[in-house]
């Protein structure tokens, strides 16, 4: 049984224009920062840009001026290599200066190649070794339940990451503990370092797998802002843990990066950066 997509019947029409513009800005930041660093992971950062934008600029209750506010919602980047999109969201939210982004991966910069909670303000937990974020999120959700804190935890995983066994240990545990305040979002871009996920080690059908583990699961278009926001808001109202499988395009927004495994962990040259920025600027102009 494949779960039905999210119903949009009762949804108030959301003004997504601002969010789309923000997502475009974050994409431009990802391109600029990875180019400046000379390394990094643009592909998955671009595929998850709309999801991360929806979280930081619409759905999540958080205070950039008070990063440790106990009642905040939390974003856990389990696919830690997509640090550029997290850093872009944090900087544009006001956690630290946007100018810092161009020092990504530099020796004296707080922006590490993979997120470090003790170096970068706003990073909830260090990550980078795949498969651990959902388990850590369970620990956070249990602690918040013990403390009667209202916050919701949104954890972003990759579909390639879902090959890690610990993800399914966590899936079992989240259902066992009936965690109402946990949403897992899978950035299902269908690609991993060595090629197409379906060819290397197929993880689909992810919604059915999560359902079988006792979760409520839904599939959405991970680039449709209206659907993303709706699904994230809906997930907060559902008893027990919720998995949102967001179908995305790796490298989304930059024509020569789209659906190319080779852009998983490669930085654009300055020439490629200019082409990418030109495309992204054209996109945002078309929005207005």
């Amino acid at each position: 049984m494949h779960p039905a997509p999210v119903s949009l019947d009762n949804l108030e029409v959301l003004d997504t224009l601002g969010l789309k513009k923000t997502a475009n800005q974050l994409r431009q930041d990802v391109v600029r920062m990875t180019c400046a660093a000379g390394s990094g992971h643009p592909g998955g950062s671009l595929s998850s840009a709309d999801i991360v934008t929806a979280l930081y600029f619409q759905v999540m209750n958080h205070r950039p001026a008070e990063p440790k506010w106990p009642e905040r919602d939390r974003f856990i980047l389990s696919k830690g290599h997509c640090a550029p999109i997290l850093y872009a969201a944090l900087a544009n939210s006001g956690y630290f200066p946007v100018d810092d982004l161009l020092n990504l991966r530099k020796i004296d910069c707080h922006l590490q190649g993979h997120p470090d909670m003790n170096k970068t303000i706003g990073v909830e937990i260090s990550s980078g070794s795949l498969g651990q974020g959902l388990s850590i999120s369970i620990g956070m959700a249990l602690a918040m339940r013990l403390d009667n804190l209202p916050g919701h935890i949104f954890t972003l995983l990759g579909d390639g990451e879902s090959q890690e066994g610990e993800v399914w240990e966590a899936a079992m545990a989240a259902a066992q503990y009936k965690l109402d305040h946990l949403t897992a979002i899978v950035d299902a871009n269908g690609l991993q370092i060595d090629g197409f996920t379906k060819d290397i080690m197929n993880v689909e059908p992810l919604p059915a797998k999560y359902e079988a583990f006792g979760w409520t699961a839904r599939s959405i278009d991970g680039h449709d802002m209206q659907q993303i926001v709706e699904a994230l808001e809906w997930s907060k109202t559902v008893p027990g843990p919720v998995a949102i499988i967001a179908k995305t395009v790796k490298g989304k927004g930059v024509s020569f990066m789209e659906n190319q495994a080779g852009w998983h962990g490669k930085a654009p040259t300055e020439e490629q950066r200019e082409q990418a920025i030109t495309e992204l600027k054209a996109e945002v102009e078309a929005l207005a």
Partner: protein
Amino acid sequence: MNAELKPRATREAYGEALLELGREHDNVVALDADLSGSTMSKFFAAEFPQRFFNVGVAEANMMSIAAGLAVSGKVSYASTFAVFATGRAFDQVRQGICQPNLPVRVCASHGGITVGEDGSSHQSVEDIGLMRMLPNMKVVVPADFNQTYAAVKESYAHAGPMYIRTGRSKLPYIYPEMPAGLGSGADVLRTGNDISIFACGIMVAKALEAAELLAQQGIDAEVVNVSVIKPIDVDTVAASLEKTGCAVTAEEHSIIGGLGDAVGEVAAEYHPVRIGRLGIRDVFGKSGTPEQLLEEFRLTAKHLASLADQVIKSSK
């Protein structure tokens, strides 16, 4: 050693101290991976079911959940057998606990070969080395029931991660009176001038026995209980080496990576002397009774005394 007190296992001290911590501090949480009856986290589980999480047979998941609890204001005590806590879940301990420097206590029972009949799959002889390698990790191997109890109680206030190794078998008391804590982590139990014996865990009692055997031969041995393998008390270890001029180490662990290497590192950097290392000599364990295994792997007072005698003769 105290012969009047009935020997007790260090894992029992863990269970009792954890329960007491639970009564004292609302933010203490405990986790286990289907071994709560063996690790003794069961006492805490019975009294504080809301704060106890049995994750089933999933050690990796347990360590990451412990990290998530710890980053959210809890002090996490995660227990399972040493071989699984450190080997099976190494990356989770490394990336999720040690790198962020979180207050998680990895409380590993069934360290070493005295696990006995279960054999090599369940006998951890690498755990101290694995944990010692991790930045931020404090590594503790208490020597008896009371020292374990004190170590666990004291651990609550430690800021970062800690590895506490306990054992399955019943041990005689080194500390008949409850100590206040671990102190510097290197406790000179017996002073001597001819050789330093550095021991941890179950080998501390055997080191004191060995010192008696050596005394009968006219050898005056110093015995140091090194309960904190990392950060090791450099001052106490180096001062003892300087005084005696040679040493032996004794541990229920591989001679690679454990106490022997930790003492050897201090010697190499501060006061180079000859050091004999008694431990598991780069092999896996096997099935047998604990007593048979201790004899087979030469972890006895007699062998320790013999090694000390050889080291003295070859270095003076």
